[in-house]
């Protein structure tokens, strides 16, 4: 039995082609293949999936999704399957961050309405493939919201993301107050660890 995580990690999520020029090619070296420091100089991010990750977390933290266009012609993939995200070694000063995949997966499991009981029972209506389809769809819809959000910011101010620490600032707004944060840490400690 192949792990659900592995099935999901083999996928290559899609996004709407309309974001290729204004976002993917502007902030990342999308379409350049292997990225090295000299080539990425001037761009904020390297591979295209980095922008996808950023967009995904924007959608996730706003807890907002947006359906992608049904027209398959108007969609593109990130170029690399999820299992390679954050693994690239030829990054110069950059660091690998493959661990992020676990958290994306965890978020998708948390946020997607799936019947794992039926899946474990082997219910033919709930196959691993269908579950992974649902996870990837959720992932794409979160990212799609994030991409639209970024586009809106750029329409309001074309320089928005070129300002100092712009992406970080975007995510700082989601950080809860210190007290809440401590409380949450406490809560997560209360979770049962054993079956």
């Amino acid at each position, binding site marked *: *039995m192949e*792990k*659900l*995580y592995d099935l999901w990690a083999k996928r290559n999520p899609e996004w709407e082609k309309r974001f290729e020029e204004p976002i993917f090619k502007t902030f990342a070296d999308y379409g350049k293949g292997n990225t090295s420091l000299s080539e990425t100089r001037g761009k*904020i*991010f390297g591979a295209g999936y*980095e922008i996808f*990750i*950023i967009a995904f*977390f924007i959608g*996730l*933290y706003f807890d907002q999704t947006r359906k992608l266009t049904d027209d398959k012609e108007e969609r593109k993939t990130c170029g690399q399957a999820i299992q390679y995200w*954050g693994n690239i070694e030829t990054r110069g*000063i*950059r*660091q*690998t*961050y493959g*661990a*992020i995949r*676990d*958290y994306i*997966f*965890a*978020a998708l*499991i*948390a*946020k997607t309405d799936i019947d*794992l*009981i039926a*899946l*474990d*029972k*082997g219910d033919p209506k709930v196959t*691993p493939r269908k*579950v992974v389809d649902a996870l990837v769809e959720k992932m794409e819809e979160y990212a799609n919201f994030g991409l639209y959000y970024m586009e809106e910011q750029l329409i309001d101010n074309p320089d928005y993301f070129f300002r100092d*620490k*712009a*992406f*970080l600032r975007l*995510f*700082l707004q*989601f*950080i*809860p107050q*210190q007290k809440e*944060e*401590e409380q*949450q*840490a406490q*809560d*997560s*400690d209360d*979770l*049962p*660890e054993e*079956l």
Partner: protein
Amino acid sequence: MIIKNLTIKNYRSYYGECSFDFTSGLTLIIGDNGDGKTTFFDALKWLLDPALEKADINNISEMRKSELEIGEVETVSVSMTFDHDGEKMIEKSFIVERVNEDKYITRSFSFKGYETQGAERFPVTGKSLIVRCFDSFIQRYSMFKGESTLNVFDDPDALKMLVDKLSDIREFDEYVEMTDEFEAKSGTAYEKECKNDKKTEREAHILEGQKTEVNARINNTRRDIRDTEKSADLFASRIEVLEKNQEASERYQELKKLIKAREEDVLQWKSRISAQNFNVNLLDKLWILASFSPILKEFREKASAFSKEKRRLHDLFVAQRAKEEGRQEVLDEISSLANGTSRLPWYLPDQETMQEMIDDEICKVCGRPAAKGTDAYEFMVAKLNEFKKHLEEKKKAQEEKPKEEELFVNRYIEQMHNLSISLGGSKAQDISELSGTIYDRLELLETFKRELAKAEEKLQDALDDKARLLIQVEGVTEEQLDLDFQNLKGFFEQKGKAEKRLVELREELRKAEALKKEIEDRYDSLNPGSSMAKVYQKVHIILRNISEAFKEAKEFNLTRFLFEIQTLANEYLERLNTQDFHGIIKLVRTSQDTTEIRLLSTNGRAITDPSGSQLTTMYMSVLFAISDLTSSKRDENYPLIFDAPTSSFGGMKESGFYNIIDSIEKQCIIVTKDFLDDRGNIDEAKIDQLTCTVYRIQKEAGFNQDDLSTIRTIITPIK
């Protein structure tokens, strides 16, 4: 020439008629800023400049102008009485008339002169008198406005011209030229005769060839010497400039190093700041998960809930199945009772008890004997066999029982639960601490930025220091200072090479000249056959000797004259700097036939950057020396007139200087603000030490500082 009186009338601030009398020694005219010192000097220059032959409306006293009624006229004039082969007078004047409220016209410009012969006074033109008695050339070496104009001798031809003008050496030139020509002509004639003379023909031709060759060599060598001297001079002057800037060069190098270090500092802070790549840290350092804790919690709760549910369903399922298995066994029991016999279950008594009863041949259940071969005995054996069979069947049945059906076929929920556990504990803690890390890093960035600002400020300070340094060494570029540092050594080497080459060239020249002399001697010692040639020979030898005698006399006189100037100048220099370091004046003749004044230390080394007062006293000493020599050689004397010559002097040096000038027998007129304190009061104690004539010039009290027509210079003789 001795100036006896100068009268200035209605000339700028000199309102009405203002008169100065002068002795043959020192006269001091003391005034503060704006009191009319420079006007005094300008009035004199205006009078003495023969080229200025027109009225200038700007020279009219504003005070007098303002008083004029319309139609009224007034005279503006400067006149001077002086002794120069008898008493003479010159006067420049013009008339000004007010034609209306705002308009003035000038007319009747005149430049008149008078000279006295015996008891008679004859009018002459002022211009001719000035040209005769105090021409512009002499003026150039007599009148100095400010300290900086004393450097007239920096012009390499200045001393030569002075020597020509003031000494009688120039008179030699005519004779040198004439005898030179005689010598050349007689030589040519003699050589021609020798070449035509059968006896000397061959040798004369050889000697002619040799002479041509040696002359060419001498010319070339002289040219080389001139060129090399120029190079050596050039290097020397560059070294002089470099040494002048040496301190600045060294300071510049220090500053350059400092600037480099500070620039590196700035760069380091900048790179530290740029290394804080906050945007990529979202991914690389997982900062994007700073807000992930609630979602992680949600995931773990969901995984936990699925897990719990799965266990609950599984337990239920297992219980159900167990219950069903229990019911089957009961049914089995019930069915054995139903065939009518009352029997113990197959497992009672147990196998050991049954074997014991058979061995003892007694039924221990009912207590009756059951001997071997009896029915009871057989019953017990059958019962034991049934027990064994039952055990075997049960075992077999256990083995052959079909696998029970499971409720869950997959373990995806367990995968989720495992992931949940792996993301818990320290990982969950790390994520919850991310926001703190981010804010710490943002704070660190602010610290870096503050450090950068400090480093940039320090860099700016160093850059400012550099700029100030460049302002101090005005006119010297940064590249030049840099180059200076590197070049100094190079120039020393080059100069050394040029000097070595000069020694060689001079030796070559000496040899070539000796050879020339030898050739000439051989010419002279030829023994021509013709009597005409013999006559030419004698004439040529005599004329050559005469020519050489004149050349040597000229050279000797020039050397002596310069030596005298130098000696006298050094005497003055010593007197003018009684208690101060002064160095030694050296007049150096160059190969370009010019003379330079150099200030050397007693060890013969040039003083590369003499102070302002050293230079001033050096120039003055040379001026005094020339003036002395002029009066002794030509019986002529010229006044020396200085406007503010001691601005670079300190107080001590200043009083010493005036005391010395006071004691020199030479007419000196010095216009100065020395002897005045900050409030414009005269230092009478110092004045008392002097024996000379002293005038105080001062603006009349009660003037309006915005109205020029209220300004008037008042002259007060103090001594």
